[in-house]
């Protein structure tokens, strides 16, 4: 039993944070420079009362306009911003969406590599006969982890969710994976407090970096240069291994979609792996880095704009927090 990506829809929260909004708060942080360098003009952010689960619900509702929700026999929800420590948000979602009760549902905690891991898990569930139609949701609200005074991180990340249906299929469309993990990079993208290792500091210790961004252990911390180093070292290797395993060359790939982390890094990676601009997705202008949803959002946009069509072989690579990474070759 093989599998295929059957449908994708995504949902972005209504509130928009523009570069001009950020510039007003931090006059030294130029709106044009943010757009030019980071590649983001605006990003959607949740309000106080909205959570990743709400975004997940909205994305799933969208996809159920074209796919019968009664077909779903497994829910995979990827998030690092769950409603509760327990119960599992996917269980709550099952009820909210009115799905069947004779189905499986789990959350899994992953970030930028989350969609790739979700595809791998979906394929496995279908290959083994455990499920036939998986609702794979990536939903994230990093804005809730970011300090209001960390303008760098606020510029980069956006909130959003994507709902992907992975279905049983005769032909093998989800072809192969190359996964990796290196926990030595854990401190380079982390929210130190709030889990069970370290309590939230009620009297928050704060410090400011050279660029004027405020940090605390209660908030998201990202060491951009270190992550950049990790990415440029690892990702070309992953691409090479994945292609070799499947006896493919990069020229036989119709389109390449990497996790949309930042425009500069993506352009550098594109050149490193030798892919022409027209075959490489680099667009986070109106959404920012939506973590685990960047790849499904990109696929959906490519399909809608006919940049990618049925039968195309697409190379997907997610990488980031963990460190965790994963590459996949799929046929659309």
């Amino acid at each position, binding site marked *: 039993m093989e599998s295929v990506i059957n449908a994708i829809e995504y949902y972005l929260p209504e509130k928009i944070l523009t570069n001009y909004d950020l510039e007003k708060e931090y006059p030294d942080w130029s709106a044009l420079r943010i757009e030019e360098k980071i590649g983001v003009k605006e990003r959607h952010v949740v309000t106080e009362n909205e959570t990743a689960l709400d975004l997940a619900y909205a994305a799933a509702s969208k996809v159920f306009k074209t796919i019968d929700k009664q077909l779903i026999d497994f829910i995979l929800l990827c998030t690092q911003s769950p409603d509760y420590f327990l119960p599992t948000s996917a269980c709550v979602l099952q009820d909210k969406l009115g799905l069947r009760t004779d189905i499986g549902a789990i959350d899994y905690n992953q970030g930028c590599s989350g969609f790739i891991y979700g595809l791998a898990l979906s394929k496995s569930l279908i290959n083994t006969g455990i499920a036939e139609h998986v609702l794979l949701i990536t939903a994230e609200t990093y804005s809730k982890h970011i300090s209001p005074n960390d303008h760098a991180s606020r510029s980069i990340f956006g909130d959003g969710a994507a709902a992907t249906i992975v279905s049983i299929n005769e032909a093998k469309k989800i072809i192969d994976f190359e996964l990796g993990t290196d926990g030595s990079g854990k401190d380079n993208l982390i929210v130190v407090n709030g889990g069970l290792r370290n309590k939230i500091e009620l009297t928050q210790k704060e410090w400011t970096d*050279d660029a004027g961004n405020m940090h605390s252990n209660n908030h998201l911390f990202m060491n951009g*240069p270190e992550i*950049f*180093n990790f990415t*440029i070292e690892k990702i070309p290797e992953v691409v090479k291994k994945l292609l070799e395993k499947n006896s493919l060359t990069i020229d036989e790939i119709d389109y390449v979609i990497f996790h949309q982390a930042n425009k*500069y890094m993506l352009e550098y990676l594109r050149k490193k792996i030798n892919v022409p601009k027209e075959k490489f997705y680099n667009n986070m202008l109106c959404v920012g880095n939506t973590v685990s949803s960047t790849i499904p959002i990109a696929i959906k946009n490519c399909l809608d704009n006919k940049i990618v069509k049925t039968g195309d072989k697409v190379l997907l690579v997610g990488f980031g927090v963990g460190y965790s990474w994963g590459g996949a070759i799929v046929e659309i």
Partner: protein
Amino acid sequence: MDDLKETLEFENLDLTENTILKEIENYDSLSILTIIALVDEKFEKKLTAKQLASISTVRSLMELIGLEYFTE
């Protein structure tokens, strides 16, 4: 030296070995990424964030990369 100037968009400035990096206009985290990328591409060397945080002048950057690469 010219490569460095161009990549970091510092062409309009009088970049000398003694110029302090952090005092250059528009020198930010993106400039750091650009330096890392440039050194990776041109010299196939890896510079860590820690190393970059420990240097202050253009000369110390050149030393980090390796002075032998900067023969005029």
